[in-house]
């Protein structure tokens, strides 16, 4: 009798579940969401990916042997272990796959090793960025059907997945990822090309800026992995000598960079903060006016034991996302547009009738959107740009939902009963060839 409340929520095994409930129909599909930072993979119908593998891989280049299969270090542990001569590389460039051999290996690693599934038994849903060129899409199709031998496959734009994950068929998706921040208008699940924008002002940019900032300050950026022990100190001029581990060899610089990225990442998570209003950010951070208020210092300890309080300088890197001209490290080439301007440009490209709807349905996702107060800032900037129409930013409150929004949308899509007619089957691929992707998944 006491257990009745719980029992009423779980459907008893004797009653038949309601058909068409949620429109779901599981066909045990796999969902793969490859990104520059991490590759997410899992079973469709679940709410978070089963595995999240860094897309960076380790390799010991062998000049004699051109092929390096089997020698790749893929996964969190292998790439973070100290191996003589191991270089860290990334198969992705500008958000799209460059090195197909490695990318295939990483995907296979995710599915076969991490999920312990046989890819030829499951339909496979893969996400892609909106700017993925046709050649790359065809290549992906080839790999899925030729290498993986999947029974069915579909390629879907990550922006569409993200809008679905936030239960919106039409939305302006702002995806702040690792390599790119992209803005994509989605109408009834179809992304628009003309309003899509992207900029490299994203997680990687923040890391670069912070690394530059630390170097400028003269901080020794020895990563945790290379240190034997640490002594805490606050005065950089009187720094105690570094006590590094002796590996018997010098780890490759790319490996050290990756290790540095780890604590910079932590800095991003704990210390960095977005300035909530564009106008009030001080023009010259070295000469703050006396009456300047609103800064709370935050302390951070670097791996070598250096402790420092960060004031206005912890706002600098996030500020450069909105105003690239304040970047601590000057950007090469033309100055990219700030994120808010990019959203405005995207809106300007749209038809006048849907603009108000888009502004009311702005979906902000991606790991970089977890930066403290970034949505507040974005909201403020957009409200200033569009004082008339209603601006509303939707952002999932759960951290995994924000980070894995694209995967989650793919998971929803691939477990949806009405979606199963869209799968590109092996049979269709055999009849038409790789070009089928252009016909079926526009």
């Amino acid at each position, binding site marked *: 009798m006491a257990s009745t409340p719980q029992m009423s929520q779980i459907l008893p095994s004797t009653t038949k579940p309601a058909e068409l409930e949620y429109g779901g129909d599981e066909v045990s599909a796999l969902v793969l969401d490859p990104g520059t930072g991490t590759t997410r993979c899992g079973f469709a119908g679940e709410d978070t990916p089963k595995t999240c593998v860094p897309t960076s891989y380790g390799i010991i280049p062998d000049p004699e042997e051109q092929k390096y299969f089997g020698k790749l270090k893929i996964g969190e542990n292998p790439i973070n272990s100290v191996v003589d001569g191991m270089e860290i590389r990334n198969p992705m460039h500008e958000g799209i796959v460059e090195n197909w051999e490695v990318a295939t290996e990483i995907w296979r690693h995710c599915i076969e090793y991490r999920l312990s599934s046989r890819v030829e038994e499951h339909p496979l849903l893969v996400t892609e960025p909106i700017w993925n060129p046709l050649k790359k899409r065809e290549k992906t199709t080839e790999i899925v059907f030729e290498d993986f031998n999947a029974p069915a496959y579909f390629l879907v734009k990550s922006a569409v997945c993200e809008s679905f994950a936030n239960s919106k068929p039409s939305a302006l998706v702002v995806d702040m990822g690792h390599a790119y921040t992209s803005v994509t208008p989605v109408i009834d699940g179809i992304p628009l090309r003309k309003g899509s924008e992207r900029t490299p002002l994203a997680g990687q940019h923040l890391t670069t800026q912070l690394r530059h900032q630390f170097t400028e300050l003269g901080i020794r950026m020895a990563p945790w992995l290379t240190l034997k022990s640490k002594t805490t100190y606050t005065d950089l001029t009187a720094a105690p000598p570094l006590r590094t581990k002796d590996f018997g060899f010098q780890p490759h610089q790319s490996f050290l960079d990756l290790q540095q990225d780890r604590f910079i990442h932590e800095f991003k998570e704990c210390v960095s903060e977005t300035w909530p209003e564009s106008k009030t950010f001080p023009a010259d951070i070295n000469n703050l006016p006396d009456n300047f208020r609103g800064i709370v210092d935050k302390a951070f300890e670097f791996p070598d034991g250096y402790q420092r309080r960060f004031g206005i300088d912890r706002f600098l890197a996030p500020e450069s996302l909105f105003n690239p001209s304040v970047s601590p490290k000057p950007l090469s080439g033309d100055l990219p547009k700030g994120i808010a301007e990019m959203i405005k440009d995207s809106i300007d490209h749209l038809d006048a*009738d849907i603009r108000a709807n888009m502004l009311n349905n702005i979906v902000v996702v991606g790991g970089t959107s977890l930066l403290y107060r970034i949505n507040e800032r974005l909201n403020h900037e957009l409200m200033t740009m569009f004082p008339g129409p209603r601006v509303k930013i939707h952002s999932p409150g759960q951290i995994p939902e924000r980070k894995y929004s694209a995967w989650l949308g793919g998971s929803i899509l691939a477990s949806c009963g009405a979606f*199963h007619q869209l*799968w590109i089957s092996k049979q269709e691929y055999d009849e038409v060839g790789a070009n089928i992707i252009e016909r079926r998944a526009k």
Partner: protein
Amino acid sequence: MSGTVTDVRDVLGIDPGALEPRQPPLKKQRTVEKRPDGITRELYALLGENAPPVAVVEHRFKDKPKFLGSVAPWREQTFKNPARKDELELKHWVRQSSLQENAVDGEQDGGQQPLPLDYQFARFNIRVNILEYSDAEYDAVLKDDDWSRQETDYLFNLIADYDLRWVVIADRYEFEGKDRTMEDLKARYYSVCRNVMEMRTPVTMMSAEEGALYNAMHYNKEQEVERKRIVHMQLYRTPAEVEHEQHLIAELRRIHDSHQQLLEEREELFNRLDYPQSTGSIAAYQGSQGLATLAQNILNSDRNKKRKSIVVAPGQPAEKEDTKAPPTASAASPTISRQGSIAEPARAHGHQRTESTASASGATPLKDKNKSNIKQLSKTEEAQYNLSHHEKLQPGVFFRTMKMNLPKANSFINKSPAIMAELNIPQILSMPTSKTCAKYEILAKEIAALMDIRKQLEKVDQETRVFKAQEAMGGDRSKRSASVLSDASRSSKRPKKEK
């Protein structure tokens, strides 16, 4: 005392059996100790051994859920989707029981389950019907200088692909580098549809449904472009414009609201001015009983009115509704008849605005301020503005002439018209200002006095004649008094001479 303990146990749901081992000491306590003085009974009852304050719960695991019946098995089953053109077979898990419902032939061995006849999600595969045209039709009515056949075909394919989602179609439209706006595409599509429909069935022959569709296909490109331009303008208003607009909207709303208030106030004013018009016959009130009820009704309405005038503070529309509906039917009827003629919104806006701002900033302090701000007028100014002060004003509407203080004597009422005519003064004042009324009153008084004196004179004359007759008869006793009387009559005649 034991009674309270069992009660507590009963409330807490403790098994009465648990009480038993504790009973002997309780009894002992009761026999040995007596309540000392100075301790209240309630406090004393709390001393000593009592029931535990917390219910004792037995620690054990939750019961296993009891499922009814056996667990239905699930089978992984391949299925085909009729919405697909190929032979793709996917697998999903289906409950055994529903399998049997769907299956054509329930029992087959070797796990070779028959495929269900239909896939439940296939019915969601719906496409929009797009008009198709033949070569002959195209050549006959669809030729256009701007649009080639290939481009038209391309457009129609795109429309079919994206199910008339114009935003997407305009986004994806790429034909030989031509720059086409969404309006161009829409105009072409609808003109093609209309032409083809018209060719197939002339407009006069169309059924109602076709006719409606034909009319719906009418597309005015210029109007659409203009509309989009306005939408664009609306979207990119500057903050100042937005603020201005909001201000205007607020103003409009306030005017609208106060208009309502104004109407209510006017209505109330009319209510006050209107005396109840009797619409029904008075037959009901002719008997003594009818008269009694009428008197009672009037008394009641009077009482209500008085009470409300105390309750209702000015500028409180919420309570005004009560006064709006007076209890007697006779008073209510003119209210309704008046309502139609009240509407005159524009005039009192300025006044209303100040009033509403006053109510926003707190009504009472402002009122006090107003009182102190009243300008003191001089006598000449008062006369100029025709201001007058009264100690008490009678309720209701009346003429000033009606309130004139005229002599009430019968002789005056009977004879004054003749005297007025003699003096060339009209009986009814043509301009009854307060001044003339006052003068008129004085005049009337003097006339009355004059009439009095004349009467007296006649009396005295009469007496004189009598005295003279008596004197003639003998003695002059009353001579003196007569001369005094004639003196008095002479002096009282003086005002008339002055006039």
